């Protein structure tokens, strides 16, 4: 039952209301309720196949829920699609890196797609901060899996968007890069942003308000 019908005044509020997801014949989850406000970190947990990726895709608007709604700032995110997409960064398993482009070209293309202006200098700075300073002019096909992941994650250092949906962001990263990313997420939260992420690693992210969301029946 949805008892929280009071529209919140803060515009950084994500509410999942009675979400259900069906994949093929299987029901992954149903009646999912959660409210996440600015500054909050939510880790989506569950076994393999519990529907963690499906949930993030569903929130992002890449898939339609079988039942229920995703509310952003109190409004149905499907109805306010454009403002919602301007508030959102989604990074999935596949990180959208083109093998034939160099890291700078990749980052500029990703920002342009998201309709965020980005200068070449800012892109280079962000990539240097991710430890790719000596790889800026190399095609991404010669980079390692972790380095490619860093190229994709460099976007997080540049964006001002408030809602981050990160699917296994720590995969393939070395401990140093994990720390770096955890720091970036911490700063995002401190600035009033929201982050939902999935991971199978134990990572310490500096956050005042951190919660777990369990999928797949475990309480």
């Amino acid at each position: 039952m949805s008892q929280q019908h009071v529209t919140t005044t803060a515009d950084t509020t994500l509410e999942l209301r009675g979400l259900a997801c069906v994949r093929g014949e299987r029901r992954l989850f149903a009646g999912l309720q959660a409210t996440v406000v600015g500054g909050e970190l939510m880790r989506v947990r569950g076994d393999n196949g519990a529907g963690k990726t499906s949930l993030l895709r569903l929130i992002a608007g890449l898939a339609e829920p079988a039942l229920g709604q995703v509310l952003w700032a109190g409004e149905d995110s499907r109805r306010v699609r454009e403002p919602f997409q301007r508030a959102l960064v989604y990074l999935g398993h596949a990180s959208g890196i083109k093998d034939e482009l160099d890291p700078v070209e990749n980052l500029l293309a990703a920002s342009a797609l998201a309709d965020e202006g980005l200068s070449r200098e800012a892109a280079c700075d962000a990539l240097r901060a991710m430890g790719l300073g000596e790889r800026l002019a190399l095609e991404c096909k010669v980079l390692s899996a972790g380095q490619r992941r860093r190229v994709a994650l460099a976007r997080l250092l540049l964006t001002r968007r408030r809602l981050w949906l990160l699917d296994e962001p720590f995969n393939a990263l070395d401990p140093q890069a994990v720390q770096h990313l955890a720091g970036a997420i911490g700063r995002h939260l401190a600035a009033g942003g929201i982050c939902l992420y999935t991971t199978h690693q134990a990572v310490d992210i500096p956050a005042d308000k951190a919660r777990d969301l369990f999928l797949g029946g475990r309480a």
Partner: protein
Amino acid sequence: MSMFQALLRRDLLLVYRRRADAITVLVFFSIVVSLFPLGVGADPTLLRPIGAGVVWVAALLSSLLSLQRLFAADHADGTLEQILLSPQPLPLAVLAKVLAHWIATGIPLALVAPLLGMQFGLTGDALLVLTGGVLLGTPILSLVGAVGAALTLGLRGGNLLVALLILPLNIPVLILGAGAVDATQSGLGAEAHLSLLAALLIATLLGTPFAVAAALRISLD
């Protein structure tokens, strides 16, 4: 820089870095067309009437070769998800991708078509009309092909399915394009055929980006 320009630039850059793909299509086109004079014989009275038809059928087949890649690479590496999440309209992104595809495959075909037409004894006006027809017709092939590519995204055997879906839809382009050259050769003038081809281009330009956008959303759900 707008999303449309950025996507177009990125796709053209990718075409340039993977230029072997575009060259393969062009070589395939040239070989298919050249097989006919070798197989049928060098009799000009036999070759001249079939020349335009052969060039057009080969253009149809070569455009199929590159279609599957139109969205498949973006789908595999996750870029397509980012395109869907862009605040800019999806049909606009589709147009940018199709335009890049046409520049990489359609324009080279149009440039080579008159050379290949000469093998069939086509001359003067007929060659000009053939080139104009290919220039007007190949964007239609790319646009209609994009619908098929989007619908079969991620399916096993999608390549074959695209061919079955798309080839029948392209029959009007084939008839008008080849008919224009025939009409020139018989002295009737190609205006009617080319005007219809242009009308068809406008209709597909207005309709297909929305169909492709809808198909992409379904394919990724």
